[in-house]
């Protein structure tokens, strides 16, 4: 275990915005989380990775108070404002809902503020579009915009890049880093995709019910527990990753399904696959 104590050396630590200690969660007797520790500080990006079914989403839900844990404690520091981006949000076709109206579901927000936040996430053109008619990449950016409208101290993002094509994923993670830099908020996100997330994290928490390893991304990627969990192939493609795009896509770009196709990706980042 590479239990490096600190991830975000350049960012302020202080009192964590969110903290979990020894969190245990069972559903119908099945163990989902087996004693997880986690802390997110202001300005820090903590990324939780792990295979499907590792309990990543559950960990977020426990922290947000959407689920109770049997043992341990999970809490947000009092008065912390959370911007949450849930996994798989599907809006029924039966509801006519333009993007601008979706963004003001939480509280009334004037059009100028909506335009400004859409500009921040790079989704300006969709402001009046029905939310069911925008692309996967646009949808994720709109969700991010809704989280940002709460002027959050902590962003909690559950698989922010799902449904986004590969080039778009890189841009989305760059955007998240930029938002952190600009707003100084903490970010806690979950991903099953290792390789893009690594470039956008101060601390990586690799879990599979328990914490397999944690620390800075480079350290985690060399950790034996990490290798055991994801196999050498995933690591081989990770190692030379430098995140340099030689092209760009708009957010409405082609959607590529990533599940189970980790070593057959068709894209041209400035790196090679193993």
């Amino acid at each position: 275990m590479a239990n490096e104590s600190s991830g975000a050396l350049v960012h302020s630590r202080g009192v964590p915005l969110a903290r979990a200690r020894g969190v245990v969660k069972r559903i119908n007797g099945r163990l989902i989380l087996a004693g997880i520790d986690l802390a997110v500080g202001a300005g820090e990006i903590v990324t939780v990775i792990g295979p499907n079914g590792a309990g990543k989403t559950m960990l977020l839900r426990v922290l947000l108070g959407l689920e109770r844990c049997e043992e341990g404690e999970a809490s947000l520091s009092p008065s912390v404002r959370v911007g949450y981006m849930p996994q798989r949000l599907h809006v029924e076709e039966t509801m006519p809902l333009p993007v601008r109206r979706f963004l003001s579901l939480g509280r009334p927000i004037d059009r100028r503020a909506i335009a400004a936040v859409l500009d921040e996430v790079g989704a300006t053109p969709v402001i009046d579009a029905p939310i069911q008619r925008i692309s996967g990449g646009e949808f994720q950016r709109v969700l991010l915009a809704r989280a940002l409208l709460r002027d959050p101290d902590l962003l909690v993002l559950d698989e922010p890049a799902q449904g986004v094509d590969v080039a778009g994923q890189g841009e989305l993670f760059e955007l998240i880093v930029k938002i952190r830099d600009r707003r100084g908020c903490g970010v806690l996100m979950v991903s099953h995709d290792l390789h893009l997330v690594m470039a956008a994290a101060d601390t990586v928490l690799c879990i599979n019910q328990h914490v397999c390893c944690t620390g800075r991304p480079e350290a985690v990627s060399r950790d034996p527990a990490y290798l055991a969990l994801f196999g050498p192939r995933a690591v081989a493609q990770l190692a030379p990753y430098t995140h340099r795009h030689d092209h760009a896509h708009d957010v409405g770009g082609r959607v590529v399904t990533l599940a189970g196709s980790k070593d057959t990706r068709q894209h041209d980042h400035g790196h090679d696959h193993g």
Partner: protein
Amino acid sequence: MATIMDDFIVRALFGGVGVAMVAGPLGAFVVWRRMAYFGDTISHSALLGVALGLLLEAPYNLAITVVCLAIAALLVVAEPRLRLASDTLLGIFAHASLALGVVVVAFMERVRLDLIGYLFGDVLSVGATDLLWIYGGGALALAALAWMWRPLLSATVHADLARVEGVHVERLRLAFMLLMAVVIAGAMKIVGILLVTSLLIIPAATARRFARTPEQMAIFAALIGAAAVALGLYASLAFDTPSGPSVVVSATAIFALSLAVSPRNA
């Protein structure tokens, strides 16, 4: 003669339009939240309310409202405790309460109940007291809906996102179910126990095709419902057809027409 004619038609029209005005916005939520079958269950229990009202010599408007509220509350309590799919549970409640209502009525030998009137509506018999219930209850229901509109909408789009943003999702769900019970109890007089849900969902489904925002859909649904009531009453008089079913047929005709002319008929 002519003035009496005018009078009960005017009362029927006022009653029907009043109900449609509330049923429209509420029906939009019923469509969004997929609660049509819940509406059916509540309305089926209304006959039990009628029977109990007769038995206890209570005003039947009150008895219906109380029974509908009780069934709604019972459903909320029962659903997480019984390991049944929600449509199974709703089916049990719907049919059990309807059957129980009929059985209780049969026990009361001296009472002759216009069962068909209750099942399919008897809008032409709407009296002054009914109007008071419809407009009083309707105004309260609309005020309550307006008050919880934004959080209810947010919870309908995504419950967890709403929760994280501080919305009391469970409390709202309960409030909405109770609201449905009140409105269904009021609307029952117009189109009857078996057809009352249609007044909630058909105008809303029609409105969906023209609306661009949730609020538009709610307002359009109210207007379309009112038009269906007027058209149905007119047809009922013109062709001497039962009024409740005529209103529902009118609503359906407007819906079918909307499929042909709507900008969204792709």
